[in-house]
């Protein structure tokens, strides 16, 4: 349900994008899985993830009933504990890492913990093979993302596609990605502020703010 498969970009574009997620299977290993899912997230939180999620919220979430001061000082920090405590039903839990080293160290600890729940990694094909090999495990199954077929010319340019498809459920609209890119280009928002805005719209917590910041900085220098 994290729907991380169809992130737009060439393989090299996923150099800072490693998603590890655990998913219990209904009727097979979902009994008493809540403590395991929480422990999975706690392990992930120890290895410098850039986002974690429980299917209901990520580390940055929309604020309700805010004070007008918000417009000058948002003053919020990623909240890992809220994500971990928010696991109340069997479902996918995930963590996003911005480098191979953190993802690998995290995966080694997950293997050691032996939860018995299916664990997947979503990144480029080569990144996944490499990290599985370094962790001494054989891949069980693989699902390849074929490129999006768009015969009717609906899709925007690659910069917007890369920013938008990091929420696999499509909650980061093309228009919002375009607006935030324009605001960075025009100096009306910093890349960090723009990334935080985009990240809050992804309710599963799989948006990668580090990759988004890199993409925004690259795109802001190149108008398409």
């Amino acid at each position, binding site marked *: *349900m994290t*729907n991380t*498969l*169809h992130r*737009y*970009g060439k393989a090299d574009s996923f150099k800072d994008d490693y998603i590890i997620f655990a*998913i219990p*299977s*209904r*009727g*097979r*290993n979902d*009994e008493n899985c809540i403590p395991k899912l929480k422990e999975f997230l706690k392990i992930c939180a120890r290895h410098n993830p850039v986002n974690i999620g429980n*299917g*209901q919220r990520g580390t940055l979430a*929309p604020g*309700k*009933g805010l*004070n*007008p001061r918000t*417009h000058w000082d948002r003053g919020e920090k990623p909240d890992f504990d809220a994500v971990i405590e928010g696991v109340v039903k*069997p479902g*996918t839990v995930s963590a996003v890492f911005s480098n191979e080293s953190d993802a690998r160290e995290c*995966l080694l600890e997950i293997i050691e913990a032996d939860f*018995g729940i*299916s*664990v997947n*990694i979503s*990144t*480029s*094909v080569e990144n*996944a093979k490499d990290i*599985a090999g370094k962790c001494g*495990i*054989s*891949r*069980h*199954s*693989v*699902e*390849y*993302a074929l*490129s999006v*077929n768009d*015969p*009717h010319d*609906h*899709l925007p340019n690659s910069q917007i596609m890369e920013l*938008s498809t990091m929420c696999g*459920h*499509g*909650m*980061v*609209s*093309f*228009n919002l990605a375009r*607006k935030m890119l324009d605001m960075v280009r025009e100096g009306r928002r910093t890349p960090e502020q723009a990334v935080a*805005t985009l990240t*809050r*719209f992804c309710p599963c917590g799989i948006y990668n703010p580090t990759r988004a910041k890199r993409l925004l900085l690259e795109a802001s220098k190149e108008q398409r």
Partner: protein
Amino acid sequence: MLINPKKCVACGNCVPVCPMGAIFVDPGINRAVINDDACVECGTCFRGMSTENLNPVLIRAIRKIASIFRFRFEPEPDVCPTSAFEMNELQMPRLIRQIFSDPVVEHASTGIKGRGTEEVKTNDVSLRVDTGEVGYTIEFGRPGVGVRFSDIQEMTRILSGNGVTFEKNNPITHLMTNTETGDLRADILEEKILSAIVEIKTTIDKVEQVLETVYRVNEKIDTVIAVGISTRCDEEGEDHILAPLLEDLGASYERAKTNLGLGRITNALKNTKMEDMIK
């Protein structure tokens, strides 16, 4: 989804937020409104926007004065200043829009939130796609375009004649009135959703035929399609069959979801799905 006209101040912040582009400021009434036909009830505006509870009359007055002097207030772009969005209670068939478009709503049929299923993410315990088989996730409408069920039916009808097996634990399969013909429920055909995934399975020799069929049908239906294609790896964790075939077909694949094989069946025997025991 509703926008309360008594609260809306036409600030326009919500307009770019909508994944379907269904929100616009109507100059005739100076309020944001939703194009109900284009709205897929994904909840992005209601759930994803942060909110304040400011007085709408005061905010409209400030905005009016500022506009006279061409002042531009630069508010946070994801904030609705007056909490104007309201979720209305939906009935079928419109309810199906929310079920398929809002990722935090759980499908009763699969127990999975959003439009997805377990796919090969749990293949190490489900063996949904076994050795020699190929699984496909044919996703319609994503990213950012949307799809109507009538267009999905166009595809399922043609696929059904190609000797494919529809995955039974899939939300679209649950909406079929006949899996032999690929027909979907008539009452939902004109409903628009953010996306949906048709899941099928074939033997390896059918890959070229299935992909050719999918892309040919896509020419006729006005949406985008993203295909995921999966297989089980060998004992060494290698895929010497599907990946080389995709290369031969000239299919581009840069990214993958990889099941690392760490799962096992841990439920008590009486609660475990029996097909696994057979396998």
